[in-house]
């Protein structure tokens, strides 16, 4: 098993009600597995997950990106800076 920190922002943080979570995932788990887990726990994610990007250690990654122990995974809703 690996442990990752998952961080939430903006509307996603409102849904989850926390800034971050620690998740234990099986070896070889991908970034999209985190979204699957969140969708299981929070039904609102089902509709929204196609609009979310994932960053690992401050870089955007594709859903297939394989996670490592202690990675910082961030769920990034559409950004609105500027």
């Amino acid at each position: 098993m690996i442990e990752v920190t998952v961080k939430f922002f903006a509307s996603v943080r409102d849904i989850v009600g926390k800034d971050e979570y620690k998740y234990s995932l099986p070896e070889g788990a991908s970034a999209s597995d985190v979204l699957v887990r969140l969708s299981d726990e929070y039904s609102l994610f089902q509709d929204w997950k196609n609009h979310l990007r994932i960053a690992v250690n401050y870089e955007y990654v594709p859903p297939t990106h394989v996670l490592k122990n202690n990675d910082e995974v961030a769920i990034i809703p559409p950004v609105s800076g500027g």
Partner: protein
Amino acid sequence: MIQIVKDKINVEQVIESVADPAAGGVDVFIGTTRNSSNGKQVRFLEYHAYKPMAIKMMHRIVNETRSQWDVKKIALVHREGRLEIGEPSVVIAVSAAHRDEAFKACRYLIDTLKKVVPIWKKEFFEDGEVWVESEERMARVENRK
């Protein structure tokens, strides 16, 4: 100068930071907070950044800009926290030998910042508040109510 700041952005200081004797011009973009959104009166806004990643992405887009246009200096400063209406939320300044590069670089910086830098704004109304995300997402949230 690449920063995310809590206090009001000192626009003059940002512009001065790109001064260069070889520059023939400075292009400046100032993003300011608007008092209305979809016809509703906005009272104030809050900007929230995923700071370490936002700073990293800001450095990246500055480097991308440098690789595309011959510019002298670039400053990119974004505000976070509570902003009143009309305050600068982002200030970008680019100095270059010629104006064409300065305009194009500045345009690229603001357009790319709005797509990739993880910063979100929340608008506060008389009767509630909403995170501003893509229009498509906003529509879905509306439909849910």
